[in-house]
């Protein structure tokens, strides 16, 4: 960022004020909708039915969250699925992709060109949704399986190319050569020389992965019926399209008091409460990791 720049070449106070005002107003376009969702999640259902979604509700209430807690099993299951999808998926992706990126970074490797093309071609052309679906369901048996979250999204060609660029730009070839002369094999060079020098690259791609996986609702929508395996985002999508989904898929529906509870279910603030718990973890961490995204962006635009 421009530190202290142009003390002699600054905006006139008038323009500075104009720009600041415009930019702050723009930021309200982001902040106000988010605030509304949070406020509604804490509004009483009675207030919502009288006045709709309001920035200042007639009455506050924790009912949305309370019911979310009571219907806990589904939400807990979904949280676990999402966390496993995110953490395990990212770990697997990073290991597999960074090894391939290391291979592509070896200038003297005869198969390098072929392997690069073998990967890059998948960026140009793809079978698309339907053949992938048929393959995954009919031939790989991934329908209603947890592995659907890990396997088809294991490697992103684009990310591998970025990782390769990270390696070639941050680690000089001579380091590989030095390792070889010292008699280290490729695995040793990879784990002891490359990985330690490579943390910024891994962090960037890892964060891309974490965000994509945390926000993945489509895989669950397409491949999962079993409510134990529905990730949070898919749960939210289902609540959004049929607010009854939670009612039908909750164990409390089996008890008399549970049925009574479901009749009075505060559906509107429940939906917003669910949104808040889905979004909160991401919003709490992203300001700290923002800079990695910027690095990734720059690398990505240098080498697609």
């Amino acid at each position, binding site marked *: 960022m421009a530190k202290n720049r142009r003390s002699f070449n600054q905006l006139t106070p008038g323009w500075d004020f104009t720009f600041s005002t415009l930019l702050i107003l723009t930021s309200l376009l982001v902040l106000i909708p988010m605030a509304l969702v949070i406020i509604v999640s804490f509004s009483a259902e009675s207030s919502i039915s009288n006045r709709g979604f309001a920035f200042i509700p007639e009455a506050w209430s924790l009912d949305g969250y309370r019911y979310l807690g009571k219907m806990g099993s589904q939400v807990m299951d979904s949280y676990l699925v999402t966390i496993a999808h995110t953490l395990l998926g990212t770990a697997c992706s990073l290991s597999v992709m960074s090894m391939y990126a290391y291979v592509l970074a070896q200038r003297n490797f005869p198969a390098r060109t072929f392997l690069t093309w073998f990967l890059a071609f998948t960026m140009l052309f793809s079978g698309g949704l*339907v*053949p992938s679906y048929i393959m995954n369901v009919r031939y790989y048996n991934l329908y209603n399986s947890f592995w659907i979250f890990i396997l088809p999204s294991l490697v992103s060609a684009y990310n591998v190319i970025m990782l390769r660029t990270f390696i070639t730009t941050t680690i000089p070839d001579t380091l590989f050569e030095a390792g070889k002369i010292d008699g280290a094999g490729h695995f040793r060079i990879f784990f002891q020389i490359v990985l330690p020098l490579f943390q910024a690259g891994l962090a960037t791609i890892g964060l891309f992965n974490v965000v994509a996986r945390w926000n993945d609702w489509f895989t669950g929508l397409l491949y999962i019926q079993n409510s134990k395996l529905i990730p949070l985002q898919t749960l939210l999508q289902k609540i959004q399209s049929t607010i009854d989904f939670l009612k039908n898929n909750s164990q409390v529906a089996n008890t008399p008091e549970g049925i009574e509870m479901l009749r009075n279910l505060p559906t509107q603030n429940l939906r917003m409460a669910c949104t808040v718990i889905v979004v909160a973890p991401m919003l709490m961490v992203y300001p700290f990791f923002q800079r990695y995204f910027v690095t990734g962006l720059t690398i990505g635009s240098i080498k697609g």
Partner: protein
Amino acid sequence: MTEATHNIRQKKRRFFRREDLALYVMALPTIIFLVMFAYAPMFGLIMAFQDLNITKGILGSPYVGFKNFEFLFSTTDAYVITRNTVLYNLAFMTVNTLVAVIMALMLSELRNRRMAKGLQTVYMLPHFLSWTVVAIVLTAFLDRSYGVVNQIIIATGGKGMVDWYRQKDIWPPLLVFINAWKGVGYSTVLYLAVISGISEEYYEAAVLDGASKFQQARFITLPHLRFVISISLIMAMGSIFRGDFGLFYSVTKDSGRLYAVTDVIDTYIYRGLTKLSNVGMSTAAGLYQSAVGFIFLLGANWVVTKIDPESAMF
């Protein structure tokens, strides 16, 4: 030196060298992945020429030639989804780039640098939300019974109770706005990173020559941004045939009344697969999308090689 090069050349002839074994082992997981999840589905595209019977599988199903394509192009569907996909993508590219450049220019000039940093963080926020969440945020405004917009209409004496998810007219501009809402922050931060990398000397020289702020933006900052902008535009051209599924499916609540203006190739394929169970035609649409997309991508890459060979993908 020449001897060494010669030596390397000699070695290159041999494709499999013992010392490379480890490299093949490291590449193996990705190779298996690519075969199973990228190349096998490509092979699966022959379903576009079949009347698929799931139990018989891809190898056992009967071939029907171009029937699925005839079916796809016999209705106006193919035209509508192609038009929507392309026009939306063009609008997204234009609006997002313009807004992001203007915002980056303004942000880079703010005197209060801490505020500029804070604003950046706020603008990035929607990038971290899923389309499902964006859809719910939008419902808070557009919901028929409770939404803020209808509440305001009632409060100001209007009739209210408009079902916005059935009003075709508002959706094209609305979708462009929502896409910008989610995407502009990201591009702004990218452009800002480029701007902050521009050497201070250019501006100092410009000031000495008596250039105004506006002239500095016009003759120094924008030319520096031109490169990254053209690359990202060309990239976007390469994926002009891909509709953002989440935006067109989730944000519109998959409302049938809106299909004429919101249906894109990706949502059409999804519906063909899940609701209509018309797998053959869906695959045909997918093949159409991939093939035309491929041509666009090659074209885009060709343009990049003309502008800047270094940035070309291949």
